[in-house]
């Protein structure tokens, strides 16, 4: 579903922000990318979204090159940034309606409420102005948009940073539900615990390179910690 083939990004004459990334995320997978700040996690997402141009290699969504088929690939993608930003003076409902219609999907109000229900937002909450939303609520709207879009791939940037454990848990639940419906999920995070809990696979990024990937099946948190720190000390 999501494929990076030798994907690289260099800014100016400095070191590579991303160096020869090779990665595949299949439908139903939840891939968690771990790494320090500046390791290249956000750059990866930006490349998939065609927000920046790759210096080398290709990013593909559903087999389509994102730089060549920008508009089409965006139909299949949904993006949830670290801070889901919505139009403050509009309600969650109005925001959902707007973004989903931009994606080419037009729904009745009841259907839109349905999406909110799926992500755990009540009708009352959905009709309030976004300026009153907590971070968790805004993220839920983000997921609602992904659902409304019927996105086949989900890109998340540090989704659980700043969420309390309960909200974090809720969020994980949603993701797992979506992956069980065949959505390919790519997620960057600092949170080792969440990575182990939610992800099906984990990758470790260091200074622009993917240095390790492994399944989370049977993995203990302490193991993950050890592997992570080992890589960080190299």
């Amino acid at each position, binding site marked *: 579903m999501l494929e990076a083939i030798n994907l690289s990004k260099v800014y100016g004459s400095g070191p590579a922000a991303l160096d020869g990334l090779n990665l595949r995320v299949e439908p139903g997978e939840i891939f968690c990318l771990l790494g320090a700040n500046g390791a290249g996690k956000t750059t990866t997402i930006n490349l998939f*979204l065609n927000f920046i141009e790759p210096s080398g290699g290709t990013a593909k969504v559903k087999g389509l090159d994102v730089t060549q088929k920008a508009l089409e690939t965006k139909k299949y993608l949904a993006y949830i*940034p670290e801070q889901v*930003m919505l*139009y403050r003076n*509009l309600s969650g409902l109005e925001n959902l309606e707007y973004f989903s*219609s*931009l*994606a080419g999907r037009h729904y009745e109000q009841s259907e839109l409420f349905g999406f909110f229900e799926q992500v755990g937002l009540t009708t009352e909450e959905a009709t309030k102005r976004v300026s009153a939303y907590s971070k968790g609520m805004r993220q839920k709207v983000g997921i609602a*948009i992904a659902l409304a879009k019927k996105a086949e791939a989900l*890109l998340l940037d540090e989704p659980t940073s700043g969420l309390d454990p309960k909200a974090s848990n809720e969020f994980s639940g949603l993701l797992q539900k979506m992956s069980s419906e065949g959505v390919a999920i790519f997620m960057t995070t600092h949170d080792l615990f969440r990575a182990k809990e939610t992800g099906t696979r984990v990758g470790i990024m260091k200074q622009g390179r993917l240095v390790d990937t492994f399944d989370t099946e049977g993995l203990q948190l302490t193991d993950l910690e050890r592997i992570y720190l080992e890589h960080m000390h190299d």
Partner: protein
Amino acid sequence: MLIQIVKNEWRNLTADRTLWWVTFILVVAIGYGVYNGTSWVHFLERSIEEALQDEHDRLAKAQHTVANGLEPERESRSPYSARYIGRRMGLRYAYLPPGPLASLSVGQSDLYPSYFKVNTQSTQRQKRHSELENPNHLLTSRFDLAFVIVYLFPLLILALSYNLISSEREQGTLAMVLSQPVTLRQFVVSKIGFRALIVSVLVIGLSFLAFLLNGINLFGDGASGQLLRWIAIVLAYSAFWFSLAVAVNALGKNSATNAIILAGMWLLFVVVVPSAVSLVVKNLYPVPTRVEFIVASREASMDARATEARLLSVFYEDHPELLPEGEEADMEEFDTLQWAAEMKVEESLKPVLARYDEQLLKQQGQVNRLRFLSPAIVTQEALNEIAGTGLARYRHFMSGVEAFHQEWRAYFVPKIFDMYEMTGPDFDEIPPYNYVEEPQGRVNRYVRVALVGLILPTLGIFALGLFKLRSYPLTG
């Protein structure tokens, strides 16, 4: 333009208070501006009416006196003489009626006189009858609709669009939007197009409302054609500022920086460049101070008088009522002498006056070229032309006055030399003044050029902006 984006923009703009403020300011400013312009036009029209009424009464009285062989009111040589009628009693006013859309831009109409006294005397040293406006007011210039359009309108446009893309990026919604299958170009065009539409409807709608409320006749004298041109100029001017906002946004800087840059551009185009252009043309083609002309004309009339054989007649020329009876014989020579003297002075002063005219024309020519450096100049000049308060129409009026003056002299001078006494029916033959409006073609051509002068840079800037959008830093 995507309809969803427009719908969203409408929601956002109405929730944000900027649009309401803009509307409020427009309502007040346009209303006030049109009211001001209209009051001024009414003042001018009343002034002209008073003058014409006086002319009518005077001529009627003179005709009545002559027709009924009555005694003159004052001791004068003869109220019946063509000389007296042509020079004093019968003088007419050549006036410039304000055009149908004169309220839209006061232009130069508060500086130039709107009527001239026409008699047999030379127009060169005529006392000008400009309105008695307080010089402080002339310095400040007027809060008319043209001021609102040229100065304030761009500010409101910039207030609505300075953070067109930068706010979305700063808010974070830009990433949300662009992760949908929408191009940045589509997004920007929709946003700006919507704002342009709202603002255009507001300005034109409010203006028309103001026109109606102030009793401006929108359908008389070809006004409707001019109104369409007015709309075109206003729209073109607004398009310039909108495209400038797009281009500056496309640079990718933050909202505060955009605001500074755009404010700077406003200052540059609306305040600095016009003053600079004024400075440049004044120095390229300086018009000598009229004081020199005054001195020269006095020199000329002194020379003319010195050649007169009879100094006494000079004296009597100024005080004919003091002439004792029985000196009719002198008068023939007296009139001829006076006429000759006046003609001589006029001839010698013509080249001097021509120099002033020439320089001013050259200045205007240079302004016509340099105006394209600033859309504000183009727009102001075009608005003046449409309202009929610019230099060109005034010069047309002046040439009409000259022509009428020639006609007047052609009628009266032969009679003066013949010592002709007017009779009742003669009064119906005195040349009347009719103002002939300048051919609309000239104004239309001018406005067309102005439109091109506004649209071309707009398109260029817009294209530049769209081009720059390709490298817009989405991850700011």
